[in-house]
């Protein structure tokens, strides 16, 4: 026997729900074998809406997985593990940072970089936007990037710098490995970054809503970067509960996007000062604590003396840890404090050699 589901647990408009309830339609069984015209007569809801309701309820009660929007069926953790292992992460060109994150910025997850102004959040985003396009023979994803800029801090000349360094690096690798050169050019990198400029939070929310369509048209997209998610939400909000709702809704749209298209979501966040009685004030990521739960992985970027550090603050799979990094002409790199030991692992010592060449 099919067990009953209450109609109010379906995504039906509240006004329709109350009409259904007062007409005595409470569970899925009540709507079975009913024609839209009959339902419309009983409840006073328009004919087309009745058809929608019946479609929604009846297709669901036959088999939960038949509807387009139904959640994906349960998969075992073993399948999930295989899936996770088959998705290569996006490298950042800083080996320390990659190791800390478990190989790089993972797909199907939301990664948030938080930091004070000037610590390198935007640089990190540009680096990732370029790195996602590394051709597959060099171990890259050969993808494209969506870059959503809210602050107006995106400087295309800087992207050209980073792209140049990456292209040079790839060509050098191609020479060493005997691959064909010119698989990746500065032009191809630039045309693989889809740039959006959002001037207020409404534009940002609208863009996020339209992204699924855009990604369907551009299936090569492997990363969506938002720099920064905080900017528009930090001013002109009188209603804080509205802000929380908008932010959490956006977070759920992001994670849906990430898993549906198997892409990485990278967000940046600003820092704010937190005062608590009896303690020194300290810098914490902005947007409040309920937002903090939204990202799957949170990395805090900070200065200590002359060094930049990345601190893995939250991750479901990796331990909390810290690594130093630096930003060079060519982008985000490791800091090499001791003579780099020339292990035979090609990709490992490449970033450092690159750094030396550029800087």
């Amino acid at each position, binding site marked *: *026997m*099919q*067990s009953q*589901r*209450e109609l*109010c*647990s*379906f995504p039906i408009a*509240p006004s329709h729900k109350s009409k259904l309830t*007062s*007409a*005595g339609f*409470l*569970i899925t069984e*009540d709507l079975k074998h009913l024609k839209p015209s009959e339902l419309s007569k009983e409840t006073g809801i328009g004919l087309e809406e009745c058809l929608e309701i019946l479609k929604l309820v009846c297709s669901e009660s036959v088999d*939960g*997985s038949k509807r387009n*929007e139904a*959640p*994906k*069926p*349960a998969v*075992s*953790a*073993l399948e*999930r*593990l295989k*899936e*996770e*292992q088959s998705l290569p992460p996006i490298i950042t060109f800083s080996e320390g940072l990659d190791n800390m994150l*478990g190989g790089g910025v993972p797909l*199907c*997850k*939301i990664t948030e970089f938080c930091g004070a102004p000037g610590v390198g959040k935007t640089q990190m985003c540009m680096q990732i936007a370029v790195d996602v396009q590394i051709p597959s023979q060099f171990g890259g994803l050969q993808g494209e990037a969506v870059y959503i800029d809210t602050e107006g801090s995106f400087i295309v000349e800087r992207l050209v710098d980073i792209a140049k360094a990456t292209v040079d690096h790839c060509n050098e690798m191609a020479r060493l490995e005997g691959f064909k050169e010119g698989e990746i050019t500065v032009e191809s990198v630039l045309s693989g970054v889809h740039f959006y400029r959002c001037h207020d939070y409404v534009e940002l929310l609208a863009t996020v809503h339209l992204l699924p369509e855009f990604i369907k048209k551009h299936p090569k997209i492997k990363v969506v970067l938002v720099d920064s998610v905080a900017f528009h939400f930090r001013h002109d909000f009188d*209603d804080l*509960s*509205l802000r*929380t*709702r908008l932010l*959490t*809704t956006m*977070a*759920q749209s992001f*994670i*849906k996007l990430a*898993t549906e298209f198997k892409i990485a979501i990278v967000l940046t966040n600003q820092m704010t000062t937190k005062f608590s009685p009896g303690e020194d004030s300290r810098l914490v990521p902005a947007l*409040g*604590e*309920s937002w*903090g*739960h*939204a990202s*799957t992985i*949170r990395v805090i970027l900070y200065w200590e003396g002359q060094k930049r550090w990345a601190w893995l*603050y*939250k*991750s*479901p*799979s990796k331990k*909390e840890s810290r690594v130093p990094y630096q930003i060079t002409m060519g982008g985000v790199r490791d800091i090499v404090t001791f003579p780099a030991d020339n292990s035979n692992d090609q990709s490992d010592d490449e970033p450092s050699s690159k750094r030396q060449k550029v800087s």
Partner: protein
Amino acid sequence: MSAVRPNLCPQLSEDVVSKLRSAGVKTVVDLIKTDLEGLALETSLPYKDLVIIRRLLLAQFSTFPVNCSDFYLTTIASSSIIPTPAEKLNELLDGGLYTSEVTEIAGEISSGKTQFCLSLCVSVVMKARQNVVFIDTCGGFSADRLAEIAESLYGEEHLEHILQSVKVIEAFDIFHLMTALQTIKDKMVKKVDPFYDTLKLLVVDSITAVIYPSLGGQQMDGHGLMVQLSLKLRHLAADFSLCVLVVNNVIGDGKVSLGKTWSHVPHCRLLISHPKDQESNVRELVLIKSSRLATGGKTKIGITEKGIEDWT
């Protein structure tokens, strides 16, 4: 409560139902509330028939008293206790997590809530030999980490079995979560999938992520959905002797999210936090709500590659 439908009881024929409906009697409750004499006059149905229908419906829709001694025996027979991997935590919880109960773990950002859930998954599979469904609402499930915990505790030979005994469902909004819960219920009722016959633990990580987007503001719908969801979780726990573990957030100074209404939902609430003066992988667990035990008890756990374990 249900609509008045034909064949609900023998006296309710199509004809009678349509007459009742035209008199404004649409649900069973309507029929019980209305004055039968007036209804008999209005519908020209025999008064006697209406009385019989009402009596039958009352019998059909009412619940029956259960002898407490029988109830106790069935409870003992059907309930079990799922031990956590940490012994001291088990002492705090009087053995572990109880089936037929909703247990909540609440904590701040990166306080180890997901680690607690993943650890418990492994523990249920290996110690209780039962299955787990993990509903992931915010992308926090990491099969990689689950495999790490399983392998470091039980070695590679059990890895595949453990991973196959945990099923993951992704649901990123409240309606998908409801559909997922309904699907689980259907599968347990129908008994077609052997996996669900030995299902013992249902994890929802996290409940806040799906409720927050619709809560607050002028719309009261969100609040209703939250209550609906809580009912579903409690019914699942009670009807199928499941242990339901939900994850909630903590914001501000130890304030658990979702407010007062939700605070009545879990039978047992654990608060997980990172004591400031301790090492970075040490967490403190405080029992702040329980229907069986004294509250306020605390214990320390450590988070390592083996998941959670006692900290001494």
